[in-house]
C-alpha cells in the first residue's frame, strides 16, 4: 500500500507541479497588471497592486481555480485510469483475487491528494512572485510599494481558510473522478465520456462547496 501511495503522489501531486507553476506565475502577473491598470488615480495608493494580487491568489486563485484546473488534469487522469481498468476487466481481476478493489484503487489517491495544500502553497507563492515580476518589469509600481502591499492588512486566517477549503477540494478531486471511473459501464468511448462527466461534476461541486465554505468561514 505504501508503494501505491508514493506512486499516486508521483502521478497526482508531483506530476501536477509543472502546470501549477506555469499557470500560477502568469496568472499572478496578469492579476497585478489588471489591478495596476484599473486603479490609476492620484488618491489610490500604489501598494494596492501587491495587496490585490496577494488577496486574489491566496483567497481564490490558488485554492479554488487551481483545484478546478486540477479537476481537468488530475480528475480526468483518475477517471480514465480507473475506467480503463474497469473496461479491461482489471478491476474484476482484483476482485477475483480477493482484493478489495475500491480500497486498493481509491484509498491511495485520497491519501496522495491530501498533499494538495502543499501544491496550493506553491501556487500562492508563485502567483505573488509573478505579480511582483509583472509589476516591476512593467513599471507599474516599485518593489517597496509591492512588498508593502502584500503585507498590508494581512490576516493569517485567510491562509488557514485557503488550506481548509483546499483539503475539502482535495477529497472532492480524489473521490468524484474515482466514482465515475469505478462505476462506469461500456467501452473505450465511454471512458472518455466518464472523464468529461467527472470533470463537470467535480467543478460544479468545488464551486458550490467554495460558496458554502466561504459563507461559513469568512462571514
Amino acid at each position: 500500500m505504501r508503494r501505491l501511495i508514493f506512486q499516486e503522489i508521483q502521478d497526482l501531486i508531483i506530476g501536477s507541479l509543472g502546470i501549477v507553476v506555469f499557470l500560477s506565475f502568469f496568472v499572478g502577473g496578469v492579476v497585478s497588471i489588471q489591478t495596476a491598470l484599473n486603479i490609476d488615480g492620484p488618491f489610490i495608493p500604489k501598494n494596492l497592486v501587491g495587496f490585490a494580487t496577494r488577496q486574489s491568489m491566496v483567497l481564490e486563485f490558488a485554492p479554488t481555480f487551481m483545484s478546478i484546473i486540477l479537476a481537468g488534469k488530475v480528475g480526468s487522469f483518475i477517471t480514465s485510469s480507473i475506467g480503463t481498468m474497469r473496461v479491461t476487466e482489471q478491476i474484476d481481476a482484483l476482485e477475483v483475487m480477493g482484493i478489495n478493489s475500491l480500497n486498493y484503487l481509491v484509498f491511495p489517491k485520497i491519501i496522495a491528494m491530501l498533499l494538495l495544500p502543499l501544491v496550493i502553497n506553491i501556487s500562492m507563492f508563485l502567483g505573488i512572485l509573478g505579480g511582483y515580476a509583472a509589476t516591476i518589469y512593467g513599471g507599474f509600481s516599485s518593489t517597496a510599494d509591492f512588498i508593502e502591499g502584500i503585507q498590508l492588512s494581512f490576516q493569517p486566517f485567510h491562509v488557514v481558510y485557503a488550506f481548509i477549503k483546499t483539503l475539502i477540494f482535495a477529497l472532492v478531486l480524489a473521490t468524484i473522478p474515482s466514482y465515475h471511473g469505478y462505476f462506469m459501464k461500456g467501452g473505450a468511448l465511454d471512458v472518455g465520456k466518464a472523464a468529461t462527466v467527472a470533470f463537470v461534476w467535480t467543478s460544479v461541486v468545488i464551486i458550490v462547496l467554495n460558496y458554502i465554505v466561504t459563507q461559513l468561514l469568512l462571514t
Partner: protein
Amino acid sequence: MIELQNITKSFDGREVLKGISMAFEAGKTNLIIGQSGSGKTVLLKCLLGLHKPDGGKMIFNGQVLNEMDDTASRTLRREMGMVFQGSALFDSMTVLENVMFPMQMLTKKKESVIREAAEEVIERVNLIDAHHKLPAELSGGMQKRVAIARAVVMKPKYLFCDEPNSGLDPKTAIVIDNLIREITRENNITTVINSHDMNSVMEIGDTILFLKDGIKAWEGSKELIFKTDNEAITDFVYSSNLMKKVKEVYQ
C-alpha cells in the same frame, strides 16, 4: 470440487440462467460451452462471486459461496485463479510484477520468496525471457500465458478461464489449452473453462456442460459428443463444415 445446484439468475426480469445443476471435478478440465448469449459468462461470473445468483447453491468443497458474507467470500476467492478473456493484466506492471502481485497483496512472504515463486511459474509457462516486458510488448498468446501464470501463482484450488484462446491462432490456442490441462492435472485444480471453440472441446474437454438459452441442454465428455443424439448439442457442434467432416471420419 464445485457443485452447482439449481442456479438461477435474471437481469431486468429476463431469466439468463434457468436452474443449472452440475458438478465440476478436481483434476479435470471442465468446459462450459454454448452459443453467445447462452449464459456461459453469467454462470462463470456467478462462480467467481462477481454476480450473485437469484437462487440455488454453489458449493465449493462443502462451502456455499452464495450464502457467505463478503469477508468469507473474499477469503474463498483467494483460492481461485482466473484467466480473463482479454487477459486483464495490469498495464503499468511488468510480467514479473503482474505475477508477483497476488502474493504481494495477499501474503506476508518475503519479497525474495515471492520473486522465486513467480519466476518458477513464469518458467512453467515458458516466458522466462519476458520477465521485464510490459503487457503491451507481448503477443496475445504471451499475454494469455502471463495471465495463466498470475492465476496459478497462489496455487489455487479452482481455476476459471473465460475464452482462454479467443483471438489466438489455432497453433497458439492448442498451446494454451494444453498448458491449462497440464497445470490442472499437476496441481489437482478444479478448472472451469468457458469456451465456444470446438478445438478446445476436443482437445481438453474432460467434462462438458452445454448451455442453450440459459438451460443445461447436455452434459458429457468429449468422447460422448460424437455419439449423442441430443439435437441441441449436435446442432451446435456440427454447425461448421469442418466438424461435419470430422464426424464422418470419426464414424
